[in-house]
């Protein structure tokens, strides 16, 4: 992990250091400042270019501020622009010097050339220095009334900039009502669009404190405003159209006539070349018809063609953005897209992020009529050079198998995967066969024959190995060699790195014992002994548990370990429908790409390392939806994986201690959070969300310390850790907020490690 970058923008080593050059520039600029020789502009321009290029590569050229301002008296517009750019960049760090520029900027705001007026006004508003706001109000007021539309567009955004520098000044100057007036009356569409952006921003920020502002915000989505904007929609630029359509999507029409009017008006937008406009239109259509089931379905039919076109045109990044939206629609109504499955076939030169989405969609649209072809296609991807995609496609085959009743053909193919002799293919297929057997025990006979022939030596991945062992235990009566395979696995107990596999091995040996006692007895003894000696707490505990259970009563033990099982009918859905609806509400935004509602990644409380905070009830949801986004981690993401091996824990701890100053709270909270997670999982009433401190108490009291409890002995005394990490979520939050943001970024990977 690289340390957080210290330099603001560090110049690369090959660049000049800048010191000497800057002073050179300074003297050259000074010479030019007074000169009135012809052609002076050209030499100025060269110098300005140099200054700007230094600025770009990160050399601090703020030292020549004064000289730059002196040289700015020119009629050359390019020179002016460079000067404005320079001033805008350094004014914030040199507020005193910025005052120097006010004068010439204000003068330029009154230039006869509207271009210069606009530029000057924009630069003036971009200074972002709080104590200069008083100089902004006048020019802005004039700018809003300027007879040139270019100046007005600049002035409108200027008002927004002023609002962000000093909200009271902006409100006191009565700018928002002026903007509203302009929005409804200005002939220039770009002015209108900018007014709309500015007002939306200002009023939603004001709405929390002022009732009037929230009323005004509501008024933006009132019938007159919406109709006014819709009637002018063709005048707007493509970007402004997105903005307007976004607003229209929020509008609630009174009756169905209105809905159809709006849809008829916007129908042709679906043919627009700009994908963003098309998506915004689709959003409007979908939201307007939410309550009209049949029309809603027609909308899906209507938007299918434009969406598919958008996906196949443009850069991969653009098609990814569209695909994400198509993805959410396919997930909502797979049957509508069932006949278009060929569009979701992957092309080989597509980037893997596109392929991954397509695979998910193929899985979703599979039905009785197209399963055969889809699965055939997926099987071809299984040999893909891109291993993650190959894995995904095998998983997709498995998912389809779990959805369908007619699994006959699919099972055959999964079994063929097992024989492909590629480690990762075998591994994925094993996991799938296990899931399949849990749902369709009737297939056990076919599967077991093939699984039995797999040498456990060839399976290395923990997940796959665990799956294989599970099957060995579950079907030991059908597999001739089961006890002996288990025996050889038990002999290699010491070499097995994964605790998950060892846990499964214990259970499998137990199951096998009840089915074939004479053959297994010896193995069981060896496994229990090895388990008891295991350094991993969970394995140790489980071995101890089995041991005592067997001592107590063998038939009870059998009932515990080997109860009659019911086939699993439905595997738990990873995302609640409430969250899915929320994402759908935020159609055409980042939420769809991240596949989580915006509050999860924009609210400070939810994003990144904070996901475990506040409401414990949300914790699992947040973690799971994150899994969907990062499936690479998702493979590993399983509650069992929270039981990290001790060595990994040590690493985290060691790393955490390296941070001076903040290490103590960080350590506290991270360790405790792991515990609280475990507590939730271990406690039977996970859904009812017990208060976290209570859960931690339980955990510590029971001594079920799967995660290393913060033992004082292991802690350097200088750090003064709590011996018992009992912190309520609020306190965690507090401590987290104290951390500088860069720290939390750096530690994000560690924490995700803990969380997932």
């Amino acid at each position, binding site marked *: 992990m*690289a340390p*957080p*970058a210290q330099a*603001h*923008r560090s110049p690369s080593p090959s660049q000049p250091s800048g010191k000497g050059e800057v002073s050179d520039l300074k003297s050259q600029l000074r010479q030019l400042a007074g000169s009135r020789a012809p052609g002076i502009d050209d030499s100025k321009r060269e110098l300005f270019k140099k200054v700007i290029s230094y600025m*770009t590569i990160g050399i601090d050229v703020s030292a020549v501020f004064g000289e730059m301002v002196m040289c700015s008296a020119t*009629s050359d*517009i*390019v020179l002016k622009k*460079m000067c404005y*750019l320079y001033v805008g960049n350094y004014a914030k760090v040199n507020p005193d010097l910025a005052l120097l520029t006010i004068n010439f900027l204000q003068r330029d705001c009154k230039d*006869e*050339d*509207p*271009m210069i007026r606009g530029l000057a006004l924009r630069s003036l508003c971009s200074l*972002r220095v709080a104590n200069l706001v008083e100089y902004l109000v006048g020019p802005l007021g004039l700018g809003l009334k300027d007879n040139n*539309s*270019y100046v007005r*567009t600049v002035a409108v*955004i200027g008002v927004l900039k002023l609002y*962000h520098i000093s909200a009271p000044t902006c409100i006191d100057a009565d700018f928002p009502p002026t903007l509203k007036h302009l929005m409804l009356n200005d002939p*220039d569409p770009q*002015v209108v*669009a*900018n007014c709309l952006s500015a007002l939306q921003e200002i009023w*939603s920020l004001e709405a929390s404190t002022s009732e009037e502002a929230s009323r005004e915000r509501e008024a933006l989505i009132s019938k007159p405003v919406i109709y006014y904007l819709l009637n002018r929609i063709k005048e707007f*630029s493509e*970007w402004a159209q*997105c903005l307007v359509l976004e607003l229209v999507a929020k509008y609630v029409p009174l009756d169905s006539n209105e809905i159809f009017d709006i849809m008829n008006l916007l129908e*042709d*937008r679906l043919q*627009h*070349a*700009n994908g*963003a406009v*098309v998506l915004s239109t689709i959003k409007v259509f979908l939201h307007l018809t939410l309550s009209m089931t049949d029309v809603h379905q027609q909308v899906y039919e209507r938007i299918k063609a*434009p969406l598919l*076109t958008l996906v*196949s045109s*443009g850069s991969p*990044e*653009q098609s990814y*953005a569209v695909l*994400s939206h198509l993805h959410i629609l396919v997930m909502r109504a797979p049957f509508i897209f069932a006949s278009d499955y060929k569009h979701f076939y992957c*092309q*080989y*030169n597509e980037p893997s992020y596109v392929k991954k989405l397509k695979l998910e969609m193929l899985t979703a649209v599979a039905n009785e009529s197209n399963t055969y072809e889809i699965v055939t296609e997926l*099987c*071809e991807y299984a*040999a893909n*050079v891109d291993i993650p995609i190959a894995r995904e496609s095998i998983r997709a085959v498995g998912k389809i198998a779990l959805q369908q009743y007619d699994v006959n053909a699919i099972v055959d193919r999964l079994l*063929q995967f097992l*024989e492909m002799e590629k480690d990762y293919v075998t591994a994925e297929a094993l996991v799938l066969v296990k899931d399949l057997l849990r749902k369709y025990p009737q297939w056990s006979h076919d599967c077991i024959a093939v699984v039995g022939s797999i040498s456990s030596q060839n399976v290395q991945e923990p997940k796959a190995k665990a799956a294989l062992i599970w099957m060995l235990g579950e079907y030991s009566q059908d597999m001739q060699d089961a006890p002996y395979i288990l025996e050889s696995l038990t002999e290699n107990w010491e070499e097995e790195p994964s605790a998950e596999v060892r846990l499964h091995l214990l259970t499998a040996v137990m199951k096998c014992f009840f089915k074939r006692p004479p053959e297994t007895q010896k193995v069981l003894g060896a496994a229990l002994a090895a388990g008891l000696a295991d350094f991993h707490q969970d394995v140790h505990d489980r071995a101890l548990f089995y041991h005592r259970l067997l001592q107590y009563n063998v038939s009870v033990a059998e009932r515990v370990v080997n109860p009659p099982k019911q086939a699993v009918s439905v595997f738990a859905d990873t995302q609640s429908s409430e969250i899915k609806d929320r994402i759908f509400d935020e159609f055409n*935004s*980042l939420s769809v*790409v*991240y596949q989580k509602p*915006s509050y999860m990644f*924009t609210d400070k409380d939810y994003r990144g390392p904070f996901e475990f905070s506040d409401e414990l009830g949300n914790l699992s949801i947040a973690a799971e939806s994150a899994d969907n986004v990062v499936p690479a981690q998702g493979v590993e993401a399983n509650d069992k994986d929270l039981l990290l091996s001790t060595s990994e824990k040590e690493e985290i701890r060691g790393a955490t201690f390296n941070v001076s100053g903040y290490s103590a709270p960080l350590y506290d909270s991270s360790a405790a959070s792991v515990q609280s997670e475990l507590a939730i999982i271990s406690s039977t009433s996970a859904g009812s969300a017990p208060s976290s401190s209570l859960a931690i108490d339980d955990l510590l009291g029971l001594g079920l310390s799967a995660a290393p409890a913060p033992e004082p002995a292991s802690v350097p005394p200088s750090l003064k850790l709590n011996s018992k990490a009992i912190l309520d979520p609020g306190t965690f939050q507090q401590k987290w907020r104290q951390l500088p943001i860069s720290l939390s*970024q750096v530690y994000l990977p560690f924490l995700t490690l803990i969380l997932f």
Partner: protein
Amino acid sequence: MPVAASAIYFLNLRGDVLINRLYRDDVGGNMVDAFRTHIMQTKELGTCPVRQIGGCSFFYMRISNVYIVIVVSSNANVACAFKFVVEAVALFKSYFGGAFDEDAIRNNFVLIYELLDEIMDFGYPQNLSPEILKLYITQEGVRSPFSSKPTDRPVPNATLQVTGAVGWRREGLVYKKNEVFLDIVESVNLLMSSKGSVLRCDVTGKILMKCFLSGMPDLKLGLNDKIGLEKESQLKSRPTKSGKTIELDDVTFHQCVNLTRFNSEKTVSFVPPDGEFELMKYRITEGVNLPFRVLPTIKELGRTRMEVNVKIKSVFGAKMFALGVVIKIPVPKQTAKTSFQVTSGRAKYNASIDCLVWKIRKFPGQTEPTMSAEVELISTMAEKKSWTRPPIQMEFQVPMFTASGLRVRFLKVWEKSGYNTVEWVRYITKAGSYEISSTDGKVLMFGDGILVQQLVSALGSRQTLHNKAIPICKAV
């Protein structure tokens, strides 16, 4: 919720900032460091173009040797952001005259700063139309057209156009010779089994236009597409002329096209921008005319020898010809020696891509050249598992041929001064991803348990449109 961009960065492949523009203060200045450490220097690069780091989202795109990164702090509109980048790059290209790469940025950074200022204000996209921006941001940038000081060439009514209603065309254009050029460019995507059956196939086409017309002309374009023809025959109440009609799956148009009129009358009518632009895009999946059929037979003779025979049939008219035909036949990595016999063109073994490459510069229609090659392999112990055989790929361009069969029926230009115009049309079809499976994976999948799973995989075969002047045959 504001959806404005907070900053835009241009980075080179090493991660050095070429140019950056911070539009808002809500992201820190060290955002680019976060991008470097968390995306560029990790394997994450290329896994997903949208990434979240800390509280900010990064959208990034690689264009030649430059990364363009947009940083946002809120729930932004992704499609809009990427489209913005694409449009901005198109704008820069039109200013630089072609290339957009690191050198072009370094040489034009002042200009880019100027443009970045105009195309986006405080994170909201403004005007990205090259026609309008070129009015007041000139490469020389000597004088603003609004300047009150006398200029050589008065620009009439320019203020209106800066933000004006007909955003894509300025008034007062005069050309001595009024000309319109239409290019219909189609790319065929195909996946064919080795037996010659089409597994999937589609055509994406676009109509590119170059207009050199005076005044404010109104144009009307007629194609041989089904809907348009039906509508027309209804209007004129006479049966459609015989001939092939094309069913377009979907069409999108440049913003200049009057969409209302397209929907009601099914005619493409528009006031074109000056110069070059993309008039429309379409997609077709039914009734595609494939220009080539490829019939490969690949035999593995023992462990160390392979025999490759490929026959290619050109199925377009005998008078036409394809240009720049390249066929890439993948062979195993351990290929040692190759020998070829070709009836046309030249073939060689390219070890860096593990392919036999057969090139035919000029490929007439209705011919069937063949290539047979013998490949000797080094026998290795490690390679006992069967080789996953990627598909054969093909590149080509066929001028005056459209895989969809689309034809321009008429192009009418109407302008109030009533001048004469010359219209030029040309067609070209090129290969998108044109792939032929070298072994039929399916047969083996359901075969008698031999699990030689064959991979159908390919590398991109993106290519640029053949720029050489192609004879313009048909003046409408």
